[in-house]
């Protein structure tokens, strides 16, 4: 099963050094003086704390990322907070002191632990009151790259996040010479409450890539008046914008890499011929990033902390809260640009992977922003330009030609990947699809999904697995870049729980974009009953995205075992991107007693698109 032996070896510890970033003193002397003269415009490294006992403090701190002093909430005086380096098999104690004037909390994202240590106020504990110290203590029973963040108010947006790196008890199957954490985030001088209020008053407030008259004229020149009108008709009727890729953009955000602005530019050193492990973490509040390193192939070895069968790509998308571990092997002495552009292409976080600190890689141009296709609304319309020529659209299965609720006159059809499905006759579990292959249940909209609070429903969602996603579908065709898809991800270790799911829970991600309301099955968190899982059961959760936004869904406490078509090596994730108008399924073994949070990790979707899960 090990595809890439020069990277993965199960025997023998690898030689490695852990470097979080070059020291600023070294940089000052090594950089050209124009840059060195700007004392602030210098790459900041991350602090690393290791051991078994940790003391963290949450404080207010004035920071300046944009030229304006702004009050942040910080962990141990820095953004990001310190990297916590743990060892699998050990018990860690983390004392967190809250020096804020309001309640706070820290949630250990992706960690499998007791419910009361999970750090979600109102679900796992009461939160940390001002002036109080909370002692977290838990066994580390996993390894890999994770992160932590506040789960109170919008504190994550104002700087409360940091990386977790856990060394495995056994030999690391991934060998490397050096490693760096690459933590991506988004910073705004605006208060997050103000951003949220603006979105509620005008949902397109931050979008300065709206369709304009000149786009319409271009379309008319290219396709004629009638076809342009037809192509626009669905958007016009549904009153939605096909340019709505990101609710919050670089208009207010400055994108950070390990706490460095693009002007500062984070720096990482390598020696020629070394294997460098980059531990990418998307700790942004609202920004989905597309990552690439021009000139280097990236071999992805882990997703959400869990090792996967290595896959080499040129580009990958990081949903908010996802982590990807990547091996690169630069073989020439030069500077390479670590380029993470926001999904809407309004800005980027950037760093320099260089053999010499005096070298700086050229920063690539932002790619063009894409527009949503009709298929992103759960529609697959015949005779219309899908604007996605490189999409892997396997054998379309023409079943259940149900009409889309917004466009009763247009027929849509599901486009599911049947190529990997086993013979239908062999299905022994009634209506449920076999473990590893996802759902074949009917899509049902509950009555709670109808009303002023929900602006669209998708009757024929496609599988989100093979789709690189909006803005990346043409990467192969236009730039020759291979882009990671979920279908490419296969677990490195065999599936632990090989039972078939005994039931399936279909959850619809719903919302009203213009009113900026978000919910699950049309019911917002404040009004929702908890979702119950039976202790010990193997259950399938199928998420149906009835919106035009991507939602990174995060289940606390238990793995989301993503069904990508290989039942024997199901990859385990903690955060799963659900693409617009698409569905995705994963299996969950409900082995964690207690109450857990389950929500969209986009910070401004989370208040509504949230469920409490009770395992009992």
């Amino acid at each position: 099963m090990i595809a890439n032996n020069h990277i993965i070896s199960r025997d023998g510890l690898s030689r490695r050094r852990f470097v979080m970033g070059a020291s600023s003193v070294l940089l000052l002397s090594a950089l050209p003086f124009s840059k060195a003269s700007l004392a602030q415009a210098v790459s900041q490294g991350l602090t690393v704390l290791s051991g078994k006992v940790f003391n963290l403090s949450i404080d207010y701190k004035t920071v300046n990322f944009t030229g304006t002093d702004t009050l942040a909430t910080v962990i141990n005086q820095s953004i990001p907070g310190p990297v916590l380096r743990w060892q699998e098999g050990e018990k860690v104690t983390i004392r967190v002191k809250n020096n804020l004037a309001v309640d706070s909390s820290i949630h250990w994202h992706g960690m499998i632990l007791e419910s009361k240590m999970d750090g979600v106020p109102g679900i796992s504990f009461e939160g940390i009151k001002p002036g109080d110290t909370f002692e977290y203590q838990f066994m580390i029973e996993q390894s890999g790259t994770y992160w932590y963040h506040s789960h109170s108010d919008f504190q994550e947006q104002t700087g409360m996040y940091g990386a977790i790196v856990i060394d495995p008890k056994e030999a690391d199957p991934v060998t490397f010479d050096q490693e760096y954490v690459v933590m991506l985030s988004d910073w705004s001088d605006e208060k997050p409450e103000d951003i949220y209020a603006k979105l509620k008053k005008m949902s397109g407030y931050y979008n300065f890539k709206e369709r304009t008259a000149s786009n319409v004229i271009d379309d008319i020149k290219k396709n004629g008046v009638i076809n342009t009108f037809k192509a626009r008709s669905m958007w016009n009727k549904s009153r939605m914008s096909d340019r709505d890729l990101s609710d919050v953009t670089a208009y207010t955000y400055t994108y950070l890499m390990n706490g460095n602005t693009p002007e500062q530019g984070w720096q990482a050193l390598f020696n020629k011929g070394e294997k460098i492990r980059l531990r990418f973490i998307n700790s942004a509040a609202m920004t989905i990033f597309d990552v690439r390193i021009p000139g280097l192939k990236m071999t992805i070895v882990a997703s959400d902390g869990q090792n996967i069968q290595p896959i080499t790509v040129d580009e990958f998308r990081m949903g908010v809260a996802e982590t990807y571990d990547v091996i690169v092997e630069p073989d020439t002495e030069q500077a390479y640009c670590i380029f993470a552009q926001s999904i809407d292409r309004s800005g980027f976080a950037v760093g320099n992977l260089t053999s010499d600190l005096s070298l700086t890689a050229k920063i690539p141009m932002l790619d063009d922003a894409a527009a949503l296709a009709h298929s992103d609304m759960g529609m697959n319309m015949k005779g219309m330009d899908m604007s996605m020529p490189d999409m892997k659209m396997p054998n379309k299965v023409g079943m259940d030609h149900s009409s889309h609720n917004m466009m009763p006159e247009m027929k849509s059809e599901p486009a599911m990947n049947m190529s990997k499905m086993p013979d239908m006759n062999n299905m022994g579990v009634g209506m449920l699809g076999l473990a590893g292959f996802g759902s074949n249940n009917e899509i049902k909209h509950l009555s709670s999904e109808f009303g002023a609070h929900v602006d669209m429903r998708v009757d024929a969602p496609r599988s989100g697995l093979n789709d690189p996603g909006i803005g990346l579908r043409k990467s192969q065709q236009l730039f020759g870049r291979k882009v990671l898809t979920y279908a490419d991800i296969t677990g490195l270790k065999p599936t632990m729980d090989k039972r078939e799911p005994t039931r399936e829970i279909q959850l619809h991600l719903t919302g009203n974009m213009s009113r900026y309301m978000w919910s699950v099955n049309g019911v917002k968190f404040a009004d929702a009953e908890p979702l119950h899982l039976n202790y010990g059961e193997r259950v399938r959760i199928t998420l149906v995205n009835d919106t035009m936004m991507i939602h990174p869904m995060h289940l606390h406490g238990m793995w989301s075992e993503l069904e990508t078509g290989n039942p024997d090596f199901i990859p385990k994730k903690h955060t799963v991107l659900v693409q617009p108008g698409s569905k995705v399924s994963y299996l969950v073994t409900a082995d964690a007693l207690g109450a857990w949070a389950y929500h969209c990790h986009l910070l401004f979707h989370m208040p509504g698109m949230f469920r409490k899960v009770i395992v009992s």
Partner: protein
Amino acid sequence: MKIKLLIGSFVMSFSSLVFNASVYAGAQDDPLLTKVMIDQVEIDTGNENAVAWSAQAWVGYDLNKIWLKTQGERAEGETETAEVHALYSRAIAPFWDLQFGIRQDLKPSPSNEWAVIGLQGLAPYFFEIDTALFVGENAKTALRIEAEYELMLTQKWVLSPEIEANFYGQNDDVTGTGSGLSDIEAGLSLRYEIVREFAPYIGINWSKKFGNTADYAAEQGQEKSQTQLVLGFRAWF
């Protein structure tokens, strides 16, 4: 009286707004917000003493809000028309709010009171619609339909055609309005959004009175139709 009943239901609806469960595991989902929109403050370039305004404000939650609306005109230092609406607004469809409450016409005097039932929202093809039926004392009725479209020339320049039509159920000597279609006002404005919240504009307004309203105007020696070049601004916060 009808209006008092309406006010009663209005107050009751508002009290149901005030309670809002807080969400503990993160930030508050549906906070109490306010928005003030000055859609129009403009002067007539042909007559700089003539000023027109139109503004709205709401306070409330995602689906339930209190709206205040006002519009009017001043000329030669005197307020010619001025009306204020206070409405309870409830979302009835993804893009539509049903609104009901009261309208008080401060000018021309003596003042008129109306009960209001309105529908405000976004129609397919992105037409912003604000339409209301008014019922006043002695079974007086009026209907107003407003529609606006925003064509984005660039991310900052917006060309916006707008139309308003008023209908009345009866003749009214005092206000000079006649039954049936009374007047139509059409405008085309070009604005530049310096920031989202503030945009100066230049516009052309054309208005015409019809039927009995036109006859009233003729009696008063007023023009039946009028074209104005206006300068103004839009703002919201």
